[in-house]
């Protein structure tokens, strides 16, 4: 019953998953809009801090090689308290997974499929994620590998197309630091650090399955820096083409920016390319959170996660619709409640509390095994 399948992904697949995970929701809702024309600076600062945070997560994983977040929690806090904290993480992962899915559903129903019920989009998307996870982590990793060249190329091309369309206004980026550093730092913590960078805490469930675990820290930090650079690139495009004020008011800024593209009066309506990028990003993000939740349930309930893929996915499809009555309510909850009361405890406080306990317990275990060895 508790027999586990050994699955491995390569370092490249890990990097691909991390990159698309980071781009996912950011491409939908945009980040740093409150800091107006300085949003790209805020993203830059958050990227550096985010890289540090990811290094810390991998450092924790290195203390107990081969064990994931849930196993580490049990190791640190004991069987029962560990299971309770693990269950809270499961709820957190699944709840965020439903939120991310809802982001995408809102985008699709308001931009492309205006007459299609949001429920249909939700069920379809979660069905894809469920199927991919049912096939396993390796299939998930390979799917990422197949799509990453398109995602990367499309993002770069969108920027160039806006530049050549003449919609790129450098003056929209001025004045730089007009309100000083204060608003930027205020925005970086907690909002920008926790979303999207802190959400990488979910990868504490995936990183132990990487084939070259020793190099995971370097690859993770490098990937965060690259994805941060791409987010800065996207933010600069949004500010330069829409202007800070319009960007603040727009629900889907990158999509609105892509709509400005008109090359040779022939290449137009390329916003669908952005939808493709977003769709793949969201599939990855929902799947990673779902996988995190399922792995947690596997650990807590002592049952292979494949038995739970379909039922739990169907719950996510349902919760994504019930989570809020409309998009405005959804965004409001995402700004007022989630960063402070959900992201900070699960992304920062619990891992920080866990660190000294983990180091102490590992040292104790080593001392004990050394003593046994010398006898």
């Amino acid at each position, binding site marked *: *019953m508790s027999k586990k399948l050994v699955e491995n992904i390569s370092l490249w697949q890990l990097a691909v998953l991390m990159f698309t995970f980071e781009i996912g929701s950011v491409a939908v809702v945009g980040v740093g809009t409150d800091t107006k024309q300085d949003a790209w600076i805020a993203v830059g600062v958050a990227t550096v801090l985010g890289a540090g945070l990811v290094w810390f997560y991998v450092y924790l994983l290195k203390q107990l090689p081969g064990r994931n977040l849930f196993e580490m929690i049990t190791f640190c806090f004991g069987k029962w308290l560990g299971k309770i904290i693990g269950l809270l993480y*499961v*709820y957190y992962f*699944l*709840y965020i997974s*439903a939120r991310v899915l809802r982001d995408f559903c809102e985008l699709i129903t308001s931009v492309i499929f205006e007459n299609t*019920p*949001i*429920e*249909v989009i*939700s*069920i379809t998307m979660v069905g894809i994620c469920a199927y991919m996870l049912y096939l396993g982590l390796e299939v998930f990793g390979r799917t990422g590998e197949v799509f990453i060249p398109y995602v990367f190329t499309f993002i770069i091309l969108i920027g160039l197309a806006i530049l050549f369309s003449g919609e790129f206004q450098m003056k929209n980026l001025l004045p730089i630091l007009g309100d000083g550093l204060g608003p930027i730092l205020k925005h970086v913590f907690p909002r920008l650090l926790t979303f999207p960078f802190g959400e990488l805490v979910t990868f504490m469930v995936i990183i132990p399955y990487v084939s070259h675990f020793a190099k995971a820290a370097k690859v993770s930090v490098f990937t965060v820096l690259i994805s941060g650079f791409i987010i800065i690139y996207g933010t600069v495009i949004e500010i330069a083409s829409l202007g800070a004020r319009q960007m603040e008011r727009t629900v889907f800024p990158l999509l609105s920016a892509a709509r400005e593209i008109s090359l040779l009066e022939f290449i137009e309506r390329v916003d669908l390319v952005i939808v493709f990028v977003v769709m793949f990003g969201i599939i990855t993000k929902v799947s990673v959170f779902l996988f995190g939740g399922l792995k947690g*349930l596997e650990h807590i*309930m*002592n*049952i292979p996660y494949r*038995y*739970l893929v*379909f*039922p*739990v*996915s*169907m*719950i996510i*499809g*349902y*919760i*994504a*619709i*019930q*989570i809020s*009555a409309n998009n405005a309510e959804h965004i*409001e*909850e995402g700004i*007022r*409640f989630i960063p402070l*009361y959900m992201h900070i405890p699960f992304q920062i406080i619990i891992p920080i509390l866990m660190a000294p306990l983990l180091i102490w317990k590992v040292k104790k275990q080593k001392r004990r095994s050394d003593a046994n060895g010398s006898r």
Partner: protein
Amino acid sequence: MLKNRMIRVVTFTFTMIFSGLLLMIALIDMFIWQQSFYQCVSKLFALDEGANEGYVIATAAAGFIYSIASDYRIRKKKRSQQS
């Protein structure tokens, strides 16, 4: 009897996750919109006119039926292994 109950782990997990997430949504709504718990819960289960919430309710129900079927499969497998 107790053993049989313990085997229904998928259905139990489904119920636990489903009710837990709904409770979480209700609590968040209570906190943000300053409404009573009863109001938030009744809002969750109210079917809006013209909306197609029936679709997602049907899929959630399908998930529940699947979990019962999974438990039955696990039990059958265990029994065949024992005999």
